[in-house]
């Protein structure tokens, strides 16, 4: 294995930017740990890894968005720490992020020159700006984008092009593309790739982050693999197969912290059945079944439609097409209130507990009973005795660590906050439970409790659809796993096929069948 040290990663060319022993933590989460990384002039350097591997943190450090907690960064042989993105841009490092930074109500030319427009007498020289934008776009190969157009009138793909043009206007030495090509339309992809190759030949360094290995192969000279905040390997194109790369991305150590599966046997109508669910452009022809007592995992890269699928089922999205059956009965669910109603008894543990799951400044007990308050009223008044006893019981059952249930829920730790969200929904006695990455940012002990809880609820007959960005969870917790790719179910994995290798391969939509990893390899 080639060492991750700088010299091995640069195939003889001079090092342009280098990280030495860089560590970055967010709260208790280590995003990067003691990372050495180097990139050299005139190369396209791909960074690959799972979600949360540390790729984005690394490029954020390069681009001056965040600062490392420890370690040094060097640019052109000198230590360089940036105070912010503007500072990094001045030093020649520009980054195109997946989230666009173009302003929809301004013109293409305004956006391209937003930080440093051509001026005359202190005012923006609009004519010169338009001319320069035109020639820049022509140089990049998009003569058909009119610099006078407003961004909001362009397609998503074209907005991405403008974003790239905006960064090119700063004449960077290092151009970072963080998942920046995922929104490109097919006809733009080829042009962007040709552009990147041309820029490389002129001596620019391009850092390219993508989950699509097939695309990376067309571009990259070098690969660096990250896993769990560490730089595990750097190698030249062609020296590793896709399967070897995927194995590097996954690593070997898998902790066993999951409850044993029950033998799921389908009986009676399924708890949840979906046929041909469509919500263009994010969901395409999704059909799936979740039996009563079954935990079905949803996997795939982030943003492949998992969030939309769960929200759609819960009645949040408008103009969703397709049929949804609950307990064998066809249902139309137009709002979360309908989804919760006694006919459907669905529950959604949303993505962001702070803004979607909880009312942070209200007391713990009010959050716990928020969804089931209707069952706690006698006449028009809330039955406060009944409320207190139900809250006590569920706090005991889930072992929520809370001193005083009248304290604001925002004062609890993340794990306990998530337990409050679960408690809120358990009090509604749901039979279909949708979970959107419920263990994100939660300590391992609480995770374990949540897995056990989900298994218990399933054993009592609930149908659970469980989206997770954590592959271990999908493998350890789920009876079946469905992998979404660009709004479709790319693959269904069952039983012993639920392996990290298969999940990652399906997530990347690598079409060739992945052989099972031999034991001990």
């Amino acid at each position, binding site marked *: 294995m080639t060492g991750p040290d700088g010299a091995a990663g640069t195939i003889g060319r001079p090092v342009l930017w280098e990280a030495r022993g860089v560590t970055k933590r967010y709260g208790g989460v280590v995003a990067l740990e003691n990372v050495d990384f180097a990139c050299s002039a005139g190369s396209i350097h791909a960074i690959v890894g799972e979600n949360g591997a540390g790729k984005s943190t690394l490029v954020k450090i390069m681009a001056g968005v965040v600062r490392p907690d420890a370690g040094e960064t060097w640019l052109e042989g000198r230590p360089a720490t940036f105070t912010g993105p503007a500072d990094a841009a001045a030093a020649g490092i520009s980054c195109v992020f997946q989230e666009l930074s173009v302003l929809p109500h301004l013109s293409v030319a305004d956006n391209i020159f937003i930080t440093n427009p051509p001026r005359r007498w202190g005012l923006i020289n609009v004519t010169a700006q338009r001319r320069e934008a035109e020639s820049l776009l022509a140089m990049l190969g998009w003569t058909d984008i009119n610099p006078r157009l407003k961004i909001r009138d362009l397609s998503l793909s074209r907005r991405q092009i403008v974003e790239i043009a905006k960064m090119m206007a700063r004449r960077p030495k290092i151009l970072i593309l963080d998942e920046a090509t995922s929104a490109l339309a097919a006809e733009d992809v080829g042009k962007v790739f040709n552009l990147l190759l041309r820029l490389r030949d002129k001596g620019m360094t391009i850092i390219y982050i993508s989950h699509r290995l097939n695309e990376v192969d067309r571009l990259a000279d070098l690969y660096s693999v990250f896993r769990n905040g560490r730089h595990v390997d750097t190698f030249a194109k062609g020296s590793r197969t896709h399967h070897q790369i995927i194995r590097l991305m996954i690593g070997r150590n898998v902790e066993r912290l999951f409850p044993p599966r029950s033998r799921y046997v389908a009986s009676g109508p399924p708890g949840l059945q979906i046929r041909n669910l469509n919500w263009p452009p994010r969901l395409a022809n999704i059909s799936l079944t979740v039996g009563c007592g079954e935990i079905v995992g949803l996997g795939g890269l982030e943003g492949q439609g998992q969030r939309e699928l769960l929200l759609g089922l*819960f009645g*949040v999205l408008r103009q969703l097409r397709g049929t949804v059956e609950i307990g064998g009965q066809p249902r139309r669910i137009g*709002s*979360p*209130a309908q*989804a*919760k*109603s006694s006919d459907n008894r669905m529950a*959604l543990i*949303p993505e962001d507990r*702070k*803004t*979607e*799951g*909880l*009312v*942070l*400044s*209200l*007391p713990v007990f*009010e959050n716990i009973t*928020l*969804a089931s*308050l*209707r069952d*706690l*009223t006698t006449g*028009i*008044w*809330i039955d*406060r005795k009944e409320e207190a006893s139900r809250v006590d019981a569920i706090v005991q059952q889930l072992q929520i660590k809370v001193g005083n249930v*009248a304290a*604001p829920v*925002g*004062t609890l730790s993340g794990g306990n906050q998530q337990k409050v969200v679960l408690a*809120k929904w358990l009090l*509604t006695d749901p039979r279909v439970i949708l979970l959107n990455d419920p263990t994100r940012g939660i300590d391992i002990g609480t995770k374990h409790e949540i897995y056990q809880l989900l298994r218990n609820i399933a054993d009592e007959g609930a149908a659970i659809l469980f989206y997770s960005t954590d592959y271990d969870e999908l493998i350890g917790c789920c009876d079946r796993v469905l992998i979404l790719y660009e709004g479709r179910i790319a693959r269904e994995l069952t039983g012993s096929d639920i392996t990290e290798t298969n999940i990652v391969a399906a997530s990347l939509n690598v079409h060739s069948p992945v052989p099972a990893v031999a034991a001990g390899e």
Partner: protein
Amino acid sequence: MWPIRLGQSKINPPVATAFASIVVVLAIGSIFSRNFLSIGYLLQQLQVASFLGVIAAGAMVVILAGHIDLSIPWTLTIGAMTATAMAAGTPFGDAGGIVAAVLVGTIVGLVNGVGAAILRVPSMIFTLGVNAVLDGIVVLYTGGFAPRNAATRFMNRIAVGRSILDIPNAVFVWIGISLIVAFMLRRTPFGRYIYAIGNSEGSVYLSGINTRLVLIGAFIISGVGNCLGGVLLAGYAGQAYQSMGDPYLLPAIAAVVLGGTNVLGGSGTYLGTVAGVLLITLLGSMLSVMQIAEAGRQIAYGVAIVVMLLAYGRSPRRRE
């Protein structure tokens, strides 16, 4: 600094401040006028406060939910005019007049609620527009001929009459409405939803609660409060007249905010609003015994609101 709605024994800092300010205002007023602390004068202040109190009760519910009702002035006026016209001009009499006022308040609240909760127009703009429309309707309605706009004897009696212990009847009306609103906020699901929506509408919506209905309900309560306030004011003035509601918009919102309700919604106690109403009323009468003109009073209201917002309005609603 958390508003303590459930630890019943404690009073939160803004409410304590409001009550302390009332004491200060009483002290200053008594320097300028020996009558200021007399029972008779204070009862009279309480009567005037009742009109504002009824309006502020509704305004508070909307503010708690994170919205604002700026249609107070003309909702109040149109409520008063409908009540007087109905009571005097139809066989339904006083009962008909009050039912009509409640009905008008409900309709205005429904329109405001639909605009803010369903059409999603910012309530600050939408209710201001509704206020202008109501203004126009009143002008149309009264433009050609003079409607029967004199208050009935019953209206006059509930506004200025005194029955028990020489306490003005209007005070009992205020107490009654206060009890309804306070219990509704603390003891019903609707009240819980109001606070929760004011903090995080998204979380409440995703908890399977029909947040639109709750918001529409809040605006209806405000509309009805405004119209009932209008009936009381008509009884007090002896008639309903154009622009009668204009002097009440700022004081009503000021009373809610001075009482410690977060102007962006989500926290506040009803007791605070009561304190705010008393404070605003006494502040006004203090300024008048100090012989400060109306202009000065307006400046004082404005300054009081700004100072209070500086003291309490900037504290974050959410603890991360």
